[in-house]
């Protein structure tokens, strides 16, 4: 092998599982940990365990939460009459960073993708519909792709007849764009220019 003790090799193996971390970086991080005080390493280990133990899915919107409800759902200052429907937790973070949206979210957990065998039953659509009783506007912010459009259309058809305004993020975002890579100004204009479905 590489002459390193098994404990060090083990940590290198674990660290190199992280996205964007290669073997070399993992080794550098492992040596850094070796040089770090025992208290700091314990602090890190405790933080990792606490992450797994305490962070789960929000019971209402499927965003990440510590406890039953996420910070957004439990914030009484937010406008509960507006729901923004997104594909993934990452999308919530992007909209929150933009800072303009004051309503609530609903994380679908993906998008209808027949070639991957993902159908509406695999997404959090039925509990979205249950949430809509007191909602006045639902903004569907799935990504602009055939999968995202199909998901938006499917949801809109499911709630047909409910007294609520359904909008879709405007096409300021080019087809196939990952919201992650869209800059905040583009996204903000897509938000204000959203279109009725």
């Amino acid at each position, binding site marked *: 092998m590489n002459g390193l003790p098994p404990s060090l090799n083990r940590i290198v193996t674990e660290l190199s599982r992280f996205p964007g971390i290669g073997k070399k970086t993992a080794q550098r991080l492992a040596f850094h940990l070796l040089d770090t005080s025992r208290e700091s390493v314990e602090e890190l280990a405790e933080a990792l365990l606490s992450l797994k133990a305490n962070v789960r899915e929000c019971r209402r919107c499927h965003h990440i939460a510590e406890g039953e409800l996420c910070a957004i759902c439990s914030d009484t200052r937010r406008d509960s009459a507006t729901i923004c429907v997104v594909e993934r937790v990452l999308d919530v973070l992007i909209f929150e960073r933009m800072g303009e949206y004051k309503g609530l979210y609903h994380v679908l957990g993906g998008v209808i993708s027949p070639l991957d*065998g993902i159908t509406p039953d695999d997404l959090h659509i039925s509990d979205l519909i249950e949430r809509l009783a007191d909602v006045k506007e639902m903004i569907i912010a799935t990504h602009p792709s055939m999968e995202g459009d199909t998901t938006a259309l*499917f949801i809109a058809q499911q709630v047909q007849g409910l007294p609520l305004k359904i909008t879709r993020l405007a096409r300021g975002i080019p*087809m196939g764009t990952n919201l992650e890579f869209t800059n905040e100004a583009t996204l903000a204009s897509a938000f204000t220019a959203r279109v009725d479905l």
Partner: protein
Amino acid sequence: MSAPHTSQAVVLRTIEYSDTSLIVRLFTETYGKVTVMARGARRPKHALHGVLSVPHRLAVDYRHKDGRDIQTLVGVELADSYAALAGDLARSAAAWLLVEMLDRAVQVADPLPLLFRLITASLEQLNTTSGDFTTVVHFYQLHLARQLGYAPQLEKCPRCGRQVQTAVLDHLGGDLVCVRCLPSGSLRLGRAALSYLRDLAATHISELDSLHPASGVRREVDQFLLKYLFIHVDGMDKLRSLKFWRQVRK
């Protein structure tokens, strides 16, 4: 040696390779099934962005190296996005089904220009017809089977040679035979279903709106064509897009 290749192509599948790159499986008119790497295609300002999506028809330019599984995409121009599909759940579901069937049916990089014409004409018809588009799906499935070399016998029974009145699918041999030769057969096609299949075989795709099969006939043929393809084409029984198609079709 690396050589520039140019062709028309349909996007069969895209796979996210990294934060910025995409692996794209194409069915090209000139070279058959080809997998290419599109570097940077996931970047929002990249020229290829959003163009590389199922089931778009493209003009592609790529560098081909013998012995490589993945070639390098150089340029793309969008020829048709079949934009009307996105406004209709059942039509999009059908488009995904057609594309996945082709992806499963074709394994090698052999030029199959007739199949290329079949998929592009079928997507085009799906995109534009105001009529009953399940006939487009049936047309595609029947002609896919024919072009893969598995045309079902719609006139004479391959066992006894007699004209078929009621046909039965022989699940073992995969043939369509007459009911007298296989009285125990469970998947049956009546006179009207056979006549609809003959019409599908003889009608030009642009004339499909003239066919109006009764709903019972449509169901019979629907079952038959899928089962027939399952028997003859490896991997067809694993179609993932079938579930969504069944869920949203009218």
